[in-house]
């Protein structure tokens, strides 16, 4: 479903991704963990080209997003803005900071892109938006503006907004990190539900127990590289590399009560 092939990205002289490859099967939930600064956010942003990158390619369901290989020249060429925008419709993204549109209520936030990007008739888009908001438990908040919603509610609207485009894959970047602890659960529950419904997902998170619950596979990144990946229990309880072991030890020390 998602093929990330040898992606490299630098900010100035800082190499943030150093040849990352990752493939995600349809319906699979891949959780990405790793220390702060290891490049997790940058990887997600490269997937839908919110960041340009110097090397590598990404395809979704076989279709390139961002760069296309020109076989004759044997080179990567950047796709046109129109092609990139069309490719992004297949990739839903949920941000740590929600990023809802403040001038639209919950319903309008969810409907905007289906109507204005895909040209879906209003009535149909609205029905679908209500359905999605109900699914994330917000049927009573459709007319509310973002400032009147709690962080957890805003993040669930953001999930519904991304789903409204019927993406083939969803990317989540630490979507609960900005939330008060008591609001984390409702967002994770919405993601669980989505995973069970068979959505293909790439989830960056620091919530290890959630990672263990939801993941089909956990990928550990450090210093711009995928260091190790495997089934949740294997990676979390009998990791093969010292780097994962050290990371988990730091994590456990911090959260042990």
């Amino acid at each position, binding site marked *: 479903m998602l093929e990330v092939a040898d992606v490299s990205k630098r900010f100035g002289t800082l190499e943030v991704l150093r040849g990352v490859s990752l493939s995600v099967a349809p319906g699979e939930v891949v959780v990405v963990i790793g220390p702060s600064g290891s490049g997790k956010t940058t990887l997600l942003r490269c997937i839908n080209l919110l960041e340009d990158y110097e090397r590598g390619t990404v395809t979704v369901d076989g279709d390139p997003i961002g760069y296309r290989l020109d076989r004759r020249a044997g080179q990567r060429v950047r796709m046109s803005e129109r092609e990139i925008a069309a490719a992004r419709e297949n990739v839903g993204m949920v941000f740590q900071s929600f*990023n809802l*549109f*403040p001038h*639209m209520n919950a319903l309008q936030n969810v409907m905007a892109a289906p109507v204005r990007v*895909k040209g879906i008739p209003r009535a149909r888009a609205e029905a679908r938006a209500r359905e999605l908001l109900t699914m994330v438990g917000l049927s009573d908040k459709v007319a509310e503006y973002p*400032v009147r919603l709690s962080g957890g509610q805003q993040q669930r609207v953001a999930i519904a907004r991304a789903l409204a485009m019927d993406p083939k894959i969803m990317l989540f970047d630490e979507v609960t990190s900005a939330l008060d602890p008591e609001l984390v659960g409702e967002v994770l529950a919405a993601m669980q539900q989505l995973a069970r419904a068979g959505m293909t997902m790439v989830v960056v998170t620091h919530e290890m127990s959630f990672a263990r619950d939801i993941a089909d596979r956990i990928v550990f990144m450090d210093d711009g590289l995928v260091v190790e990946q495997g089934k949740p229990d294997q990676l979390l309880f009998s990791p093969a590399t010292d780097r994962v072991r050290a990371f988990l030890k730091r994590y456990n020390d911090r959260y042990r009560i």
Partner: protein
Amino acid sequence: MPFDLHFIARLIPALIEGAEVTVELAILTFAICLVWGLIVALANSTRGPLSWFAGAYVQIVRNTPLLIQMYIVYFGFSMAGFGLSGFASGLLALCIQNGGYVAEIYRGGLQAVSTRQYEAGRALGMRRWTLYTVVIIPQVVARIVPPMTNQAISITKDTSQVAAIAVMDMMKVAQVWVESSANTYDVFLGVAIIYLVLTSVASVAGKLFERRLAFAQ
């Protein structure tokens, strides 16, 4: 003698005639600046020499007195051999200066929209036109209404300076009446009240517009 009712009865129609010129100047200036200021702001947001010119323009017009700009335009054109009317010179000078202020308002409004809003729109597959019309511009408009209202009020008062280049606006009418009578106080009080009425209209219109667009409460 102040508050001479017979005098006031003759004064008011004359002032209102002058006020028509004032209103005309204010509305034209504001309308032109809404467009011209946007052009300057967009030029300012590019990279390269265009933004350098726009930046210099804004600095120069904001940091010199309007009255001097008005003289430079009025006498400059007449020295160059094709004299502009006082009204046209006044309008031009008002637009030159206020265009700089309005450009800064636009710039502030654009900068206040976080890059995350652009990214959220792009991640949903929006292209430039959709992104701007659906996501960015509505937020910019809502943010700039209050400072634009202030600017409209400021422009209304600024128009009084065209009196210096012999335009028969309300201020000039008042000066003529003061010179030909001893009733200085009634004249200027009347002028103040009419300016207050005009600026209040701008203020109320701005507030109504603001309320229509308010989303963040």
